[in-house]
């Protein structure tokens, strides 16, 4: 196996933690904060993160199902988020081997087009279905999502960075 220079050896990811974090992102997305188009889509962020880091566990079908849940919650067109998340997860799986060779800030720059594409898909679908334009602040959402990438990389990889043999000096 080819190792990247400076790559950390990580513990195996806990499936409970993966699905728990996805559910928590869904919950955070569902907090009723009104109609705010610029709010970042945390579920999309978590789905891209796990599609990049654990493509064998979290893939396109999971993204589709989570998208369906978001559609029903947002009362939009059924299938709008499902399509966007499916495409997002596919692109994330396509770039996952290349992406991890870069430092985290440049990873954030590389996932920005993915998030832009996901929002553009939703906008195009809704405009074709006859929705009203949500305003220019929609452009902020993918930028905020990509700015959150370093943060979510630290948080979601933290359990895998623990010591393999905890003792009283290293309890975590």
């Amino acid at each position, binding site marked *: 196996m080819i190792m990247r220079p400076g790559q950390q050896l990580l513990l195996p990811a806990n499936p409970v933690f993966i699905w728990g974090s996805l559910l928590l992102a869904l919950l955070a997305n*569902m907090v009723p904060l009104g109609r705010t188009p610029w709010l970042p889509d945390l579920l999309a962020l978590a789905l891209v993160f796990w599609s990049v880091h654990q493509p064998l566990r979290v893939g*396109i079908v999971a993204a*589709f199902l989570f998208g369906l849940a978001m559609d029903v919650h947002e009362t939009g067109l059924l299938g709008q988020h*499902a399509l966007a998340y499916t495409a997002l997860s596919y692109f994330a799986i396509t770039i996952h081997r290349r992406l991890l060779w870069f430092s985290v800030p440049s990873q954030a720059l590389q996932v920005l087009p993915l998030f832009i594409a996901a929002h553009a898909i939703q906008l195009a679908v809704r405009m074709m279905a006859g929705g009203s334009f949500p305003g220019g602040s929609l452009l902020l959402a993918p930028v905020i999502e990509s700015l959150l990438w370093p943060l979510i990389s630290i948080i979601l990889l933290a359990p*895998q960075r623990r010591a393999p043999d905890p003792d009283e000096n290293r309890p975590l």
Partner: protein
Amino acid sequence: MPRRGDGAQLRMPLGTLDRSPPPFFKQGPSALSKLMVCSTLALFLMVADARFRIAQPVRAAVATILFPVEWLAMRPVLGLRFVAGYFESLASAQAGEAAARQRLAQLSLRANQVEQLEVENRRLRKLLELRDRLGAPARAAEVLYDAADPYSRKVILDAGLAQGIQPGSPVLDELGVLGQVTRVHPLVSEVTLVIDREQAIPVLNARTGARSVAYGDPSGQGGTLELRFMAGNADVQPGDLLTTSGVDGVYPPGLPVARVSKVDRRQDSAFARIECTPQALVQGARHVMVLTPLGSEGPQRPAVPEDATAGARKGQRK
């Protein structure tokens, strides 16, 4: 000092590295084929939802599964709302109460007159042999939150199929018509506001008696309504009250909907551009009334003569 590579790796317990070889034979379908299947399914769902309205069972099932998650997600916002209400100053609460009492006094004057007018109206209608005007049964509900979808204008009510809400029911707040129930889930229901782009409501100009249809227009500040296809010289003035006309068989007649705010008569167009402000609190309504749509228990149709129906049936058979 141990060399790197031998000691450290040997002491490590098994199964502590996130490196397992990818499965050789159990690959499953490729990512591209999964993408194809899922996006086709999503497109199919969109068409089924937008054009044929047959995706409602899927929606109701997912909504029921999601209800506990939504309930949990609502807690912080409801908590904040409670805390804000608790710390609202005494003065503003008293001012609110005084205003409410004043409004109640005004309304009770009108209400007492209405009792008498209704009796009078009923007698006059009997004299003229008109059909009795229907009072629609109503039930109270509370707005849980604004739907997050930025492409439409909807709110979520805390009552659904279990509470007997029917799709198509008109929804009012204390000031006027708020919208219409468009989807009913087992425990919650969705209300499309009058300012939604796809919502239209037949109205009557209370000053002139002219009927027209008001369309939602969410692009204006706070959302407005627009009277379309009114002639450039139509008798509409800013300040006119628009009420429901009742010709649609959904809304009971006489409920306030909007007030005309701007009339723009253009030289180059045959129609005037008429902007109206909704009367209901489309941004912050909390307590609403859900009426039963008139169509479900509308007035009885006049009896059709026997031979006429027989003729119609014969015509169908041909």
